[in-house]
């Protein structure tokens, strides 16, 4: 996926010249969210293990409830883990929509038929809507990214 993103950045740099447009913002968000998703997917398990150890030392199964355990785990709870998977699914869907949008404008005849409905008039993309969708997904992903960064040290 990273090669695709790098290609998108290259084209954007050439064709846009700046990132202040909705298209530029969308491209920037794809790069940032893609890097965050990579880091989360590799660091989330270690983060959860650390939080479980921390909460295991703090809580007593005889005295505390399952809700206490979930509260202590915070974003490492099973509910939040399931939410993370759904957010990552949304991210992939929006990234794909943006990749298709880039192609709508650069090479519309090669857009697979199943995705042609994503091209306005066959060759334009609604960059404002795409940037808004990705911003929304990014906001949901950000807490996980911040939490995991504390464990991975941003590696």
């Amino acid at each position, binding site marked *: 996926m990273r090669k695709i993103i790098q290609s998108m950045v290259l084209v954007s740099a050439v064709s846009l010249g700046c990132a202040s447009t909705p298209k530029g913002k969308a491209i920037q968000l794809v790069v940032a969210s893609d890097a965050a998703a990579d880091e989360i997917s590799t660091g989330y398990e270690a*983060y959860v293990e650390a939080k479980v150890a921390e909460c295991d030392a703090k809580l007593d199964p005889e005295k505390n409830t399952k809700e206490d355990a979930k509260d202590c785990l915070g974003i490492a709870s*099973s509910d939040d883990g399931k939410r993370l*998977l759904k957010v*990552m699914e949304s991210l992939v869907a929006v990234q794909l929509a943006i990749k298709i949008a880039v192609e709508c404008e650069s090479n519309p005849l090669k857009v697979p038929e199943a995705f042609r409905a994503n091209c306005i008039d066959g060759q334009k993309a609604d960059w404002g809507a795409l940037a808004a969708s990705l911003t929304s997904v990014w906001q949901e992903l950000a807490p996980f990214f911040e939490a995991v960064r504390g464990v991975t040290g941003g590696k």
Partner: protein
Amino acid sequence: MTTALIALGQALIGGIPKIIAAIKAGKKYEDIKLSDFVSSDAVEAVKRAIGKAESFEDKFKG
């Protein structure tokens, strides 16, 4: 710029065969799943983490 666009087109076409296969298999665009695109290792790591959290939570009363 033309060269860059051609490179992009090739990268895009090369990057989405799994998605196209999923579409051909009857999936709708909206139904594309993470595992169609992200490596199964990354998905499995998150699922393992969920399992570890659930095991810990299950030690506590309902």
